[in-house]
Protein backbone atom coordinates (compact mmCIF):
# COMPACT_ATOMS: atom_id res chain seq x y z
CA UNK A 1 0.00 0.00 0.00
CA UNK A 2 1.36 3.40 -0.84
CA UNK A 3 -1.05 6.29 -0.77
CA UNK A 4 0.82 9.52 -0.18
CA UNK A 5 -0.92 12.69 0.82
CA UNK A 6 0.69 16.12 1.13
CA UNK A 7 -1.31 18.71 3.07
CA UNK A 8 -0.44 22.41 2.82
CA UNK A 9 3.25 21.56 2.57
CA UNK A 10 5.68 24.46 2.32
CA UNK A 11 9.43 24.63 2.11
CA UNK A 12 11.71 27.61 2.57
CA UNK A 13 15.47 27.82 2.32
CA UNK A 14 16.25 30.75 4.57
CA UNK A 15 13.98 33.57 3.43
CA UNK A 16 13.25 32.03 0.07
CA UNK A 17 10.06 30.07 -0.14
CA UNK A 18 10.63 27.44 -2.83
CA UNK A 19 7.35 25.67 -2.28
CA UNK A 20 4.31 27.74 -1.36
CA UNK A 21 1.45 25.85 0.34
CA UNK A 22 0.81 22.76 -1.72
CA UNK A 23 -1.73 19.92 -1.52
CA UNK A 24 -1.38 16.73 -3.48
CA UNK A 25 -2.61 13.18 -3.22
CA UNK A 26 -0.88 10.29 -4.91
CA UNK A 27 -3.07 7.21 -5.03
CA UNK A 28 -1.82 3.73 -4.28
CA UNK A 29 -0.22 2.06 -7.28
CA UNK A 30 -0.20 5.23 -9.34
CA UNK A 31 2.73 6.21 -11.54
CA UNK A 32 2.99 9.92 -10.87
CA UNK A 33 5.46 12.15 -12.70
CA UNK A 34 6.56 15.54 -11.41
CA UNK A 35 7.61 17.56 -14.41
CA UNK A 36 8.75 21.12 -14.85
CA UNK A 37 11.71 23.23 -15.90
CA UNK A 38 14.85 23.05 -13.78
CA UNK A 39 14.50 24.92 -10.51
CA UNK A 40 10.75 24.44 -10.37
CA UNK A 41 10.94 22.64 -7.04
CA UNK A 42 10.13 19.16 -8.31
CA UNK A 43 13.24 17.56 -6.82
CA UNK A 44 12.73 19.42 -3.55
CA UNK A 45 9.18 18.09 -3.42
CA UNK A 46 10.46 14.55 -3.94
CA UNK A 47 13.07 15.00 -1.22
CA UNK A 48 10.38 16.25 1.15
CA UNK A 49 8.42 13.09 0.50
CA UNK A 50 11.57 11.02 1.02
CA UNK A 51 12.29 12.82 4.29
CA UNK A 52 15.71 13.99 3.12
CA UNK A 53 14.57 17.57 3.68
CA UNK A 54 12.47 18.94 6.53
CA UNK A 55 9.20 20.57 5.59
CA UNK A 56 8.85 24.13 6.78
CA UNK A 57 5.18 23.52 7.50
CA UNK A 58 2.42 21.10 6.57
CA UNK A 59 2.04 17.37 6.95
CA UNK A 60 2.71 14.28 4.93
CA UNK A 61 0.67 11.09 5.26
CA UNK A 62 1.94 7.78 3.99
CA UNK A 63 -0.64 4.99 4.06
CA UNK A 64 -2.92 7.05 6.22
CA UNK A 65 -0.47 7.64 9.05
CA UNK A 66 1.37 10.88 9.68
CA UNK A 67 4.95 10.56 8.47
CA UNK A 68 5.94 14.21 8.88
CA UNK A 69 8.50 13.55 11.58
CA UNK A 70 9.48 10.05 10.53
CA UNK A 71 13.14 9.83 9.43
CA UNK A 72 13.75 8.71 5.81
CA UNK A 73 14.92 5.27 6.84
CA UNK A 74 11.59 4.53 8.50
CA UNK A 75 9.22 5.79 5.81
CA UNK A 76 9.29 2.57 3.83
CA UNK A 77 10.15 4.38 0.61
CA UNK A 78 12.92 3.53 -1.84
CA UNK A 79 14.70 6.07 -3.97
CA UNK A 80 16.66 5.94 -7.21
CA UNK A 81 18.99 8.89 -7.49
CA UNK A 82 20.09 10.84 -10.52
CA UNK A 83 23.71 9.81 -10.00
CA UNK A 84 22.51 6.29 -9.04
CA UNK A 85 24.38 6.76 -5.73
CA UNK A 86 25.77 3.23 -5.77
CA UNK A 87 28.24 2.36 -3.04
CA UNK A 88 31.51 2.24 -4.98
CA UNK A 89 33.29 0.00 -2.50
CA UNK A 90 30.65 -2.73 -2.59
CA UNK A 91 29.94 -5.33 -5.26
CA UNK A 92 26.63 -5.25 -7.09
CA UNK A 93 25.41 -8.04 -4.83
CA UNK A 94 26.30 -6.09 -1.69
CA UNK A 95 24.80 -2.91 -3.10
CA UNK A 96 21.48 -4.59 -3.72
CA UNK A 97 21.62 -6.40 -0.38
CA UNK A 98 22.46 -3.28 1.61
CA UNK A 99 18.90 -2.19 2.50
CA UNK A 100 18.07 -5.77 3.48
CA UNK A 101 21.15 -5.95 5.68
CA UNK A 102 20.07 -2.70 7.32
CA UNK A 103 16.64 -4.24 7.89
CA UNK A 104 18.39 -7.16 9.64
CA UNK A 105 16.90 -9.82 7.40
CA UNK A 106 18.47 -13.25 7.62
CA UNK A 107 21.08 -14.16 5.06
CA UNK A 108 19.01 -16.78 3.22
CA UNK A 109 16.20 -14.32 2.68
CA UNK A 110 18.67 -11.64 1.55
CA UNK A 111 20.23 -14.03 -0.97
CA UNK A 112 16.83 -15.09 -2.25
CA UNK A 113 15.68 -11.52 -2.82
CA UNK A 114 18.96 -10.37 -4.37
CA UNK A 115 18.96 -13.29 -6.81
CA UNK A 116 15.35 -12.53 -7.62
CA UNK A 117 16.00 -8.87 -8.33
CA UNK A 118 19.12 -9.69 -10.32
CA UNK A 119 17.29 -12.05 -12.63
CA UNK A 120 14.46 -9.59 -13.18
CA UNK A 121 16.94 -6.84 -14.05
CA UNK A 122 19.36 -9.01 -16.07
CA UNK A 123 22.14 -8.43 -13.58
CA UNK A 124 22.82 -12.07 -12.67
CA UNK A 125 26.17 -12.09 -14.50
CA UNK A 126 27.38 -8.92 -12.84
CA UNK A 127 26.68 -9.61 -9.19
CA UNK A 128 30.32 -9.79 -8.21
CA UNK A 129 31.47 -6.71 -10.06
CA UNK A 130 31.82 -3.27 -8.61
CA UNK A 131 29.82 -0.29 -9.83
CA UNK A 132 32.95 1.19 -11.44
CA UNK A 133 33.10 -1.77 -13.84
CA UNK A 134 29.54 -1.34 -15.09
CA UNK A 135 28.05 0.70 -17.93
CA UNK A 136 25.61 3.52 -17.25
CA UNK A 137 22.58 1.38 -18.03
CA UNK A 138 23.79 -1.43 -15.78
CA UNK A 139 24.41 0.98 -12.92
CA UNK A 140 20.92 2.28 -13.37
CA UNK A 141 19.59 -1.26 -13.06
CA UNK A 142 21.59 -1.87 -9.91
CA UNK A 143 20.10 1.28 -8.40
CA UNK A 144 16.63 0.03 -9.30
CA UNK A 145 17.48 -3.41 -7.94
CA UNK A 146 18.53 -1.88 -4.64
CA UNK A 147 15.18 -0.13 -4.53
CA UNK A 148 12.95 -3.09 -5.40
CA UNK A 149 14.40 -5.66 -2.99
CA UNK A 150 13.03 -3.72 -0.06
CA UNK A 151 9.49 -4.07 -1.38
CA UNK A 152 8.82 -0.45 -0.46
CA UNK A 153 5.47 1.29 -0.16
CA UNK A 154 6.53 3.59 -2.99
CA UNK A 155 9.44 4.22 -5.32
CA UNK A 156 10.89 7.66 -5.74
CA UNK A 157 12.88 8.39 -8.89
CA UNK A 158 14.92 11.58 -9.13
CA UNK A 159 15.66 12.19 -12.83
CA UNK A 160 17.03 8.66 -13.12
CA UNK A 161 17.59 8.68 -16.87
CA UNK A 162 19.25 12.04 -17.32
CA UNK A 163 22.76 10.58 -17.25
CA UNK A 164 22.10 8.01 -19.97
CA UNK A 165 22.52 8.46 -23.70
CA UNK A 166 19.43 8.84 -25.85
CA UNK A 167 19.12 5.24 -27.03
CA UNK A 168 19.54 3.77 -23.54
CA UNK A 169 17.09 6.27 -22.16
CA UNK A 170 14.32 4.96 -24.37
CA UNK A 171 15.11 1.39 -23.33
CA UNK A 172 15.20 2.14 -19.61
CA UNK A 173 12.01 4.15 -19.89
CA UNK A 174 10.29 1.05 -21.14
CA UNK A 175 11.87 -1.12 -18.45
CA UNK A 176 10.68 1.16 -15.68
CA UNK A 177 7.18 1.22 -17.15
CA UNK A 178 7.17 -2.59 -17.33
CA UNK A 179 8.41 -2.76 -13.76
CA UNK A 180 5.50 -0.62 -12.70
CA UNK A 181 3.02 -2.83 -14.56
CA UNK A 182 4.42 -5.87 -12.77
CA UNK A 183 4.87 -4.50 -9.25
CA UNK A 184 1.82 -2.25 -9.21
CA UNK A 185 3.56 -0.16 -6.56
CA UNK A 186 3.24 3.60 -6.25
CA UNK A 187 5.98 5.35 -8.17
CA UNK A 188 6.86 9.01 -8.08
CA UNK A 189 9.13 10.08 -10.88
CA UNK A 190 10.79 13.44 -11.28
CA UNK A 191 11.93 14.64 -14.68
CA UNK A 192 12.34 17.78 -16.72
CA UNK A 193 11.70 15.83 -19.91
CA UNK A 194 8.06 16.08 -20.94
CA UNK A 195 8.46 13.09 -23.26
CA UNK A 196 9.32 10.88 -20.26
CA UNK A 197 6.36 12.35 -18.41
CA UNK A 198 3.94 11.73 -21.28
CA UNK A 199 5.08 8.20 -22.01
CA UNK A 200 5.32 6.84 -18.46
CA UNK A 201 2.83 8.60 -16.26
CA UNK A 202 -0.62 7.68 -15.06
CA UNK A 203 -0.74 11.14 -13.60
CA UNK A 204 1.41 14.13 -14.40
CA UNK A 205 1.99 16.98 -11.97
CA UNK A 206 3.29 20.05 -13.79
CA UNK A 207 5.23 22.36 -11.51
CA UNK A 208 6.55 25.86 -11.96
CA UNK A 209 8.26 27.87 -9.23
CA UNK A 210 7.02 25.42 -6.60
CA UNK A 211 3.39 25.83 -7.68
CA UNK A 212 1.35 23.01 -9.18
CA UNK A 213 0.14 24.30 -12.53
CA UNK A 214 -1.96 21.30 -13.40
CA UNK A 215 -2.51 17.69 -12.40
CA UNK A 216 -3.93 15.15 -14.79
CA UNK A 217 -3.40 12.25 -17.12
CA UNK A 218 -1.02 12.79 -20.03
CA UNK A 219 -3.83 13.14 -22.53
CA UNK A 220 -5.78 15.53 -20.32
CA UNK A 221 -2.78 17.79 -20.19
CA UNK A 222 -2.24 17.49 -23.91
CA UNK A 223 -5.85 18.13 -24.83
CA UNK A 224 -6.90 20.64 -22.26
CA UNK A 225 -3.91 22.47 -20.79
CA UNK A 226 -5.17 24.68 -18.01
CA UNK A 227 -2.94 27.63 -18.85
CA UNK A 228 -0.28 28.94 -21.20
CA UNK A 229 2.57 27.41 -19.22
CA UNK A 230 1.25 23.87 -19.38
CA UNK A 231 0.24 24.32 -23.00
CA UNK A 232 3.76 25.37 -23.86
CA UNK A 233 5.46 22.77 -21.71
CA UNK A 234 3.58 19.66 -22.78
CA UNK A 235 3.95 18.56 -26.37
CA UNK A 236 6.88 18.55 -28.77
CA UNK A 237 7.53 20.55 -30.83
CA UNK A 238 6.12 23.31 -28.68
CA UNK A 239 2.67 24.76 -29.27
CA UNK A 240 2.49 27.92 -31.40
CA UNK A 241 0.96 30.96 -29.70
CA UNK A 242 -0.47 34.08 -31.31
CA UNK A 243 -1.89 37.22 -29.83
CA UNK A 244 -3.61 40.21 -31.39
CA UNK A 245 -5.89 40.14 -34.38
CA UNK A 246 -5.83 36.41 -35.01
CA UNK A 247 -6.58 35.73 -31.34
CA UNK A 248 -9.35 38.29 -31.29
CA UNK A 249 -11.08 36.41 -34.10
CA UNK A 250 -11.47 33.58 -31.60
CA UNK A 251 -12.53 35.87 -28.75
CA UNK A 252 -9.31 35.23 -26.84
CA UNK A 253 -6.25 37.13 -25.69
CA UNK A 254 -3.94 34.38 -26.86
CA UNK A 255 -4.59 31.34 -28.97
CA UNK A 256 -2.44 28.27 -29.30
CA UNK A 257 -2.24 25.67 -32.00
CA UNK A 258 -0.03 22.59 -31.91
CA UNK A 259 2.37 22.05 -34.86
CA UNK A 260 0.72 18.71 -35.62
CA UNK A 261 -2.67 20.36 -35.94
CA UNK A 262 -1.76 22.50 -38.93
CA UNK A 263 -2.18 21.15 -42.45
CA UNK A 264 0.26 22.22 -45.13
CA UNK A 265 -0.27 22.85 -48.80
CA UNK A 266 1.62 24.53 -51.62
CA UNK A 267 -1.46 26.07 -53.15
CA UNK A 268 -3.92 27.32 -50.58
CA UNK A 269 -4.54 27.77 -46.84
CA UNK A 270 -5.72 30.10 -44.10
CA UNK A 271 -2.21 31.42 -43.52
CA UNK A 272 0.90 31.52 -45.59
CA UNK A 273 4.58 32.10 -45.03
CA UNK A 274 8.14 31.33 -46.12
CA UNK A 275 9.94 28.19 -44.99
CA UNK A 276 13.20 29.09 -43.24
CA UNK A 277 14.36 25.68 -42.03
CA UNK A 278 12.95 22.24 -42.68
CA UNK A 279 14.01 19.41 -40.39
CA UNK A 280 13.53 15.94 -41.84
CA UNK A 281 13.18 13.25 -39.20
CA UNK A 282 12.15 10.62 -41.68
CA UNK A 283 8.79 9.87 -40.14
CA UNK A 284 7.94 13.53 -39.77
CA UNK A 285 9.13 16.82 -41.09
CA UNK A 286 9.21 20.01 -39.04
CA UNK A 287 8.93 23.30 -40.90
CA UNK A 288 9.90 26.57 -39.30
CA UNK A 289 7.88 29.19 -41.13
CA UNK A 290 8.58 32.93 -41.16
CA UNK A 291 6.64 35.93 -42.48
CA UNK A 292 3.22 34.61 -41.59
CA UNK A 293 2.18 37.88 -40.01
CA UNK A 294 1.19 35.93 -36.89
CA UNK A 295 4.37 35.36 -34.94
CA UNK A 296 8.10 35.46 -35.46
CA UNK A 297 8.27 31.76 -36.24
CA UNK A 298 5.57 29.20 -36.68
CA UNK A 299 6.36 25.52 -36.30
CA UNK A 300 4.49 22.96 -38.33
CA UNK A 301 4.67 19.21 -38.17
CA UNK A 302 3.94 17.40 -41.40
CA UNK A 303 4.26 13.95 -42.84
CA UNK A 304 7.77 12.75 -43.62
CA UNK A 305 7.11 12.74 -47.34
CA UNK A 306 6.17 16.40 -47.59
CA UNK A 307 9.00 18.40 -49.08
CA UNK A 308 9.46 22.14 -48.82
CA UNK A 309 12.83 23.82 -48.99
CA UNK A 310 14.33 26.94 -47.58
CA UNK A 311 12.67 29.97 -49.17
CA UNK A 312 9.60 28.11 -50.45
CA UNK A 313 6.16 29.61 -49.90
CA UNK A 314 3.97 27.39 -47.76
CA UNK A 315 0.24 27.57 -47.09
CA UNK A 316 -1.11 26.54 -43.70
CA UNK A 317 -4.55 25.57 -42.42
CA UNK A 318 -5.17 25.05 -38.68
CA UNK A 319 -7.67 22.48 -37.44
CA UNK A 320 -10.26 24.75 -35.89
CA UNK A 321 -11.51 22.13 -33.36
CA UNK A 322 -8.15 22.01 -31.55
CA UNK A 323 -7.38 25.68 -31.22
CA UNK A 324 -6.64 26.47 -27.57
CA UNK A 325 -7.92 29.80 -26.27
CA UNK A 326 -6.46 31.71 -23.31
CA UNK A 327 -7.46 34.91 -21.55
CA UNK A 328 -5.23 37.84 -20.59
CA UNK A 329 -4.16 36.03 -17.40
CA UNK A 330 -3.04 33.08 -19.50
CA UNK A 331 -5.86 30.84 -18.28
CA UNK A 332 -7.75 28.53 -20.55
CA UNK A 333 -11.12 29.67 -21.89
CA UNK A 334 -13.71 26.93 -22.39
Amino acid at each position, binding site marked *: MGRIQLKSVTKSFGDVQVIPPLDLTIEDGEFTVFVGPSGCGKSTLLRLIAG*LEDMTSGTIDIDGSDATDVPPAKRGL*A*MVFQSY*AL*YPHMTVRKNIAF*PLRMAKLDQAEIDRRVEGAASVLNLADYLDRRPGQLSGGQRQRVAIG*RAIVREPAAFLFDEPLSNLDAALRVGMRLEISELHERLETTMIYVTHDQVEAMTMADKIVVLQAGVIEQVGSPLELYRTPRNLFVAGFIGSPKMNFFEGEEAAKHNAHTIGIRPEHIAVSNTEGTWSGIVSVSEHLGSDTFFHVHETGLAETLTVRADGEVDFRHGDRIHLTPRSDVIHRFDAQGLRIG
Partner: protein
Amino acid sequence: MARTVTTRRKTLNTAFAWAVGLLIFFPILWTILTSFKTEAQAIASPPIFLNFDWTLENYAIVQERSDYMRFLWNSVIIAGGSTILGVIVAVPAAWAMAFVPSKRTKDILLWMLSTKMLPAVGVLYPIYLLFIQLGLLDSRGGLVVVLMLINLPIIVWMLYTYFREIPGEILEAARMDGATLKEEILYVLTPMAIPGIASTVLLNFILAWNEAFWTLNLTAVDAAPLTAFIASYSSPEGLFFAKLSAASTMAIAPILILGWFSQKQLVRGLTFGAVK
Protein backbone atom coordinates in the same frame (compact mmCIF):
# COMPACT_ATOMS: atom_id res chain seq x y z
CA MET B 1 45.02 14.11 -26.51
CA ALA B 2 48.65 14.12 -25.57
CA ARG B 3 50.68 14.76 -28.61
CA THR B 4 53.43 12.43 -29.68
CA VAL B 5 56.87 13.97 -29.88
CA THR B 6 59.97 12.91 -31.69
CA THR B 7 62.33 10.55 -29.94
CA ARG B 8 65.09 13.12 -30.23
CA ARG B 9 63.05 15.71 -28.39
CA LYS B 10 62.11 13.18 -25.74
CA THR B 11 65.73 12.14 -25.28
CA LEU B 12 66.76 15.75 -24.79
CA ASN B 13 63.96 16.32 -22.29
CA THR B 14 64.92 13.21 -20.42
CA ALA B 15 68.60 14.07 -20.21
CA PHE B 16 67.95 17.62 -19.09
CA ALA B 17 65.27 16.72 -16.56
CA TRP B 18 67.37 13.97 -15.04
CA ALA B 19 70.36 16.30 -14.76
CA VAL B 20 68.26 18.90 -12.94
CA GLY B 21 66.57 16.27 -10.78
CA LEU B 22 69.88 14.77 -9.71
CA LEU B 23 71.31 18.21 -8.99
CA ILE B 24 68.42 19.00 -6.66
CA PHE B 25 68.61 15.58 -5.06
CA PHE B 26 72.37 15.70 -4.80
CA PRO B 27 72.69 17.03 -1.21
CA ILE B 28 70.58 14.11 0.01
CA LEU B 29 72.49 11.63 -2.10
CA TRP B 30 75.80 13.05 -0.92
CA THR B 31 74.71 12.79 2.71
CA ILE B 32 73.68 9.18 2.27
CA LEU B 33 76.94 8.31 0.50
CA THR B 34 79.07 10.12 3.07
CA SER B 35 77.39 8.21 5.88
CA PHE B 36 79.07 5.06 4.55
CA LYS B 37 82.56 6.57 4.39
CA THR B 38 85.25 6.72 7.02
CA GLU B 39 85.81 10.16 8.54
CA ALA B 40 89.06 10.52 6.61
CA GLN B 41 87.45 9.70 3.30
CA ALA B 42 84.54 11.97 4.09
CA ILE B 43 86.78 15.02 4.03
CA ALA B 44 89.23 13.75 1.42
CA SER B 45 90.39 16.25 -1.15
CA PRO B 46 89.40 15.94 -3.90
CA PRO B 47 86.11 14.44 -2.69
CA ILE B 48 85.52 10.75 -3.31
CA PHE B 49 82.22 10.05 -4.96
CA LEU B 50 81.67 6.29 -5.03
CA ASN B 51 85.07 4.73 -4.90
CA PHE B 52 85.48 4.47 -1.12
CA ASP B 53 85.53 1.70 1.45
CA TRP B 54 81.90 1.22 2.39
CA THR B 55 81.46 0.97 6.13
CA LEU B 56 78.61 0.88 8.61
CA GLU B 57 80.70 1.96 11.54
CA ASN B 58 79.29 5.51 11.62
CA TYR B 59 75.83 4.15 12.20
CA ALA B 60 77.11 2.02 15.03
CA ILE B 61 78.90 4.96 16.63
CA VAL B 62 75.97 7.35 16.32
CA GLN B 63 73.60 4.76 17.70
CA GLU B 64 75.89 3.97 20.61
CA ARG B 65 76.76 7.50 21.56
CA SER B 66 73.48 9.28 21.27
CA ASP B 67 70.96 6.61 21.92
CA TYR B 68 69.39 7.19 18.54
CA MET B 69 66.55 4.81 19.32
CA ARG B 70 65.26 7.02 22.09
CA PHE B 71 65.06 10.06 19.84
CA LEU B 72 63.48 7.98 17.11
CA TRP B 73 60.93 6.63 19.54
CA ASN B 74 60.13 10.17 20.71
CA SER B 75 59.65 11.27 17.12
CA VAL B 76 57.34 8.36 16.41
CA ILE B 77 55.28 8.99 19.55
CA ILE B 78 55.06 12.73 19.03
CA ALA B 79 54.35 12.67 15.30
CA GLY B 80 52.13 9.60 15.45
CA GLY B 81 50.29 10.64 18.60
CA SER B 82 49.56 14.15 17.41
CA THR B 83 48.36 12.87 14.03
CA ILE B 84 46.07 10.21 15.46
CA LEU B 85 44.66 12.57 18.05
CA GLY B 86 44.16 15.22 15.37
CA VAL B 87 42.32 12.82 13.07
CA ILE B 88 40.05 11.69 15.89
CA VAL B 89 39.06 15.28 16.57
CA ALA B 90 38.93 16.28 12.90
CA VAL B 91 36.92 13.45 11.32
CA PRO B 92 33.60 14.34 12.97
CA ALA B 93 34.17 18.04 12.36
CA ALA B 94 35.05 17.53 8.69
CA TRP B 95 32.12 15.16 8.29
CA ALA B 96 29.74 17.75 9.70
CA MET B 97 31.08 20.55 7.52
CA ALA B 98 31.15 18.49 4.34
CA PHE B 99 27.76 16.84 4.61
CA VAL B 100 25.72 19.20 6.74
CA PRO B 101 27.00 22.55 5.50
CA SER B 102 25.40 25.63 6.95
CA LYS B 103 25.85 29.30 6.25
CA ARG B 104 28.62 29.43 8.80
CA THR B 105 30.61 26.45 7.52
CA LYS B 106 32.79 28.52 5.26
CA ASP B 107 33.52 31.04 8.01
CA ILE B 108 34.43 28.29 10.45
CA LEU B 109 36.76 26.66 7.93
CA LEU B 110 38.50 29.92 7.16
CA TRP B 111 38.77 30.77 10.81
CA MET B 112 40.37 27.39 11.49
CA LEU B 113 42.81 28.10 8.71
CA SER B 114 43.60 31.47 10.22
CA THR B 115 44.74 29.82 13.45
CA LYS B 116 47.34 28.01 11.35
CA MET B 117 48.68 31.39 10.28
CA LEU B 118 49.38 32.42 13.85
CA PRO B 119 53.17 32.78 14.00
CA ALA B 120 54.50 30.37 16.59
CA VAL B 121 56.93 32.91 17.92
CA GLY B 122 54.03 35.21 18.80
CA VAL B 123 52.75 32.77 21.36
CA LEU B 124 56.06 31.19 22.33
CA TYR B 125 56.25 32.57 25.83
CA PRO B 126 52.67 31.87 26.91
CA ILE B 127 52.99 28.28 25.75
CA TYR B 128 56.37 28.00 27.41
CA LEU B 129 54.92 29.39 30.64
CA LEU B 130 51.86 27.13 30.49
CA PHE B 131 54.12 24.17 29.92
CA ILE B 132 56.16 25.04 33.01
CA GLN B 133 53.03 25.59 35.10
CA LEU B 134 51.46 22.33 33.95
CA GLY B 135 54.72 20.43 34.24
CA LEU B 136 54.64 19.61 30.54
CA LEU B 137 58.04 20.99 29.60
CA ASP B 138 60.16 18.28 28.01
CA SER B 139 57.27 15.85 28.01
CA ARG B 140 56.02 13.92 25.01
CA GLY B 141 52.42 14.42 26.03
CA GLY B 142 52.75 18.19 25.90
CA LEU B 143 54.30 18.13 22.44
CA VAL B 144 51.67 15.73 21.16
CA VAL B 145 49.01 18.25 22.15
CA VAL B 146 50.82 21.26 20.70
CA LEU B 147 51.62 19.59 17.38
CA MET B 148 48.08 18.27 17.21
CA LEU B 149 46.78 21.80 17.61
CA ILE B 150 49.07 23.37 15.04
CA ASN B 151 48.23 20.69 12.47
CA LEU B 152 44.53 20.40 13.28
CA PRO B 153 43.49 23.05 10.74
CA ILE B 154 45.33 21.20 7.97
CA ILE B 155 43.83 17.88 9.03
CA VAL B 156 40.31 19.29 9.08
CA TRP B 157 40.83 20.94 5.71
CA MET B 158 42.26 17.90 4.01
CA LEU B 159 39.54 15.64 5.34
CA TYR B 160 36.95 18.22 4.38
CA THR B 161 38.14 18.36 0.77
CA TYR B 162 38.19 14.56 0.59
CA PHE B 163 34.78 14.19 2.18
CA ARG B 164 33.32 16.76 -0.16
CA GLU B 165 34.24 14.54 -3.06
CA ILE B 166 31.99 11.81 -1.70
CA PRO B 167 28.65 12.56 -3.32
CA GLY B 168 26.00 13.46 -0.76
CA GLU B 169 23.51 11.37 -2.73
CA ILE B 170 25.32 8.21 -1.68
CA LEU B 171 24.85 9.02 1.97
CA GLU B 172 21.23 9.92 1.30
CA ALA B 173 20.83 6.61 -0.47
CA ALA B 174 22.11 4.87 2.65
CA ARG B 175 19.60 6.82 4.69
CA MET B 176 16.81 5.81 2.33
CA ASP B 177 18.03 2.22 2.53
CA GLY B 178 17.31 2.27 6.23
CA ALA B 179 20.80 2.86 7.63
CA THR B 180 21.04 4.68 10.95
CA LEU B 181 23.57 7.46 11.31
CA LYS B 182 25.99 5.01 12.89
CA GLU B 183 25.53 2.46 10.13
CA GLU B 184 25.81 5.18 7.51
CA ILE B 185 29.18 6.29 8.86
CA LEU B 186 30.40 2.75 9.49
CA TYR B 187 29.39 0.95 6.29
CA VAL B 188 29.24 3.70 3.70
CA LEU B 189 31.20 6.80 4.64
CA THR B 190 34.23 5.24 6.30
CA PRO B 191 35.08 2.74 3.55
CA MET B 192 34.80 5.50 0.97
CA ALA B 193 36.80 7.94 3.07
CA ILE B 194 39.65 5.59 4.00
CA PRO B 195 41.96 6.63 1.14
CA GLY B 196 41.49 10.29 2.05
CA ILE B 197 42.01 9.66 5.73
CA ALA B 198 45.15 7.64 4.97
CA SER B 199 46.62 10.47 2.88
CA THR B 200 45.80 12.96 5.59
CA VAL B 201 47.46 10.83 8.24
CA LEU B 202 50.52 10.40 6.07
CA LEU B 203 51.05 14.07 5.28
CA ASN B 204 50.45 15.19 8.84
CA PHE B 205 52.78 12.58 10.20
CA ILE B 206 55.46 14.02 7.93
CA LEU B 207 54.73 17.60 8.95
CA ALA B 208 54.78 16.69 12.63
CA TRP B 209 57.96 14.65 12.21
CA ASN B 210 59.77 17.60 10.67
CA GLU B 211 58.37 20.28 12.96
CA ALA B 212 61.33 22.14 14.39
CA PHE B 213 60.14 25.17 16.32
CA TRP B 214 58.15 23.71 19.17
CA THR B 215 60.18 20.52 19.34
CA LEU B 216 63.38 22.54 19.73
CA ASN B 217 61.96 25.02 22.23
CA LEU B 218 59.85 22.77 24.42
CA THR B 219 62.13 19.77 24.87
CA ALA B 220 65.46 19.23 26.55
CA VAL B 221 66.40 15.61 27.10
CA ASP B 222 63.57 13.22 27.86
CA ALA B 223 61.14 14.11 25.11
CA ALA B 224 63.61 15.34 22.49
CA PRO B 225 62.77 13.95 19.03
CA LEU B 226 65.06 13.59 16.03
CA THR B 227 64.93 17.28 15.13
CA ALA B 228 66.59 18.06 18.43
CA PHE B 229 68.95 15.10 18.09
CA ILE B 230 70.23 16.55 14.83
CA ALA B 231 70.39 20.09 16.18
CA SER B 232 72.71 18.77 18.89
CA TYR B 233 75.20 18.00 16.11
CA SER B 234 75.48 21.62 15.11
CA SER B 235 78.88 21.93 16.79
CA PRO B 236 81.52 20.79 17.17
CA GLU B 237 80.60 17.21 16.29
CA GLY B 238 79.23 18.53 13.02
CA LEU B 239 82.76 18.55 11.76
CA PHE B 240 82.72 14.78 11.76
CA PHE B 241 81.03 14.58 8.40
CA ALA B 242 80.54 10.84 8.24
CA LYS B 243 78.86 10.63 11.62
CA LEU B 244 76.80 13.72 10.90
CA SER B 245 75.71 12.09 7.66
CA ALA B 246 74.82 8.85 9.35
CA ALA B 247 72.75 10.67 11.95
CA SER B 248 71.05 12.76 9.25
CA THR B 249 70.31 9.76 7.10
CA MET B 250 68.73 7.98 10.02
CA ALA B 251 66.61 11.02 10.80
CA ILE B 252 65.27 11.56 7.29
CA ALA B 253 65.10 8.03 5.90
CA PRO B 254 61.70 7.07 7.31
CA ILE B 255 60.15 10.30 6.09
CA LEU B 256 61.72 10.19 2.63
CA ILE B 257 60.10 6.81 2.16
CA LEU B 258 56.72 7.97 3.44
CA GLY B 259 57.09 11.14 1.41
CA TRP B 260 57.26 9.21 -1.83
CA PHE B 261 53.79 7.91 -1.14
CA SER B 262 52.38 11.28 -0.25
CA GLN B 263 53.51 13.54 -3.08
CA LYS B 264 50.05 13.81 -4.60
CA GLN B 265 48.38 14.60 -1.28
CA LEU B 266 51.04 17.16 -0.53
CA VAL B 267 49.56 19.63 -2.99
CA ARG B 268 46.04 19.30 -1.72
CA GLY B 269 47.04 19.32 1.91
CA LEU B 270 49.28 22.33 1.79
CA THR B 271 47.12 24.48 -0.46
CA PHE B 272 43.95 23.73 1.47
CA GLY B 273 42.33 22.32 -1.62
CA ALA B 274 42.92 25.49 -3.61
CA VAL B 275 45.09 23.65 -6.14
CA LYS B 276 44.21 20.12 -7.18
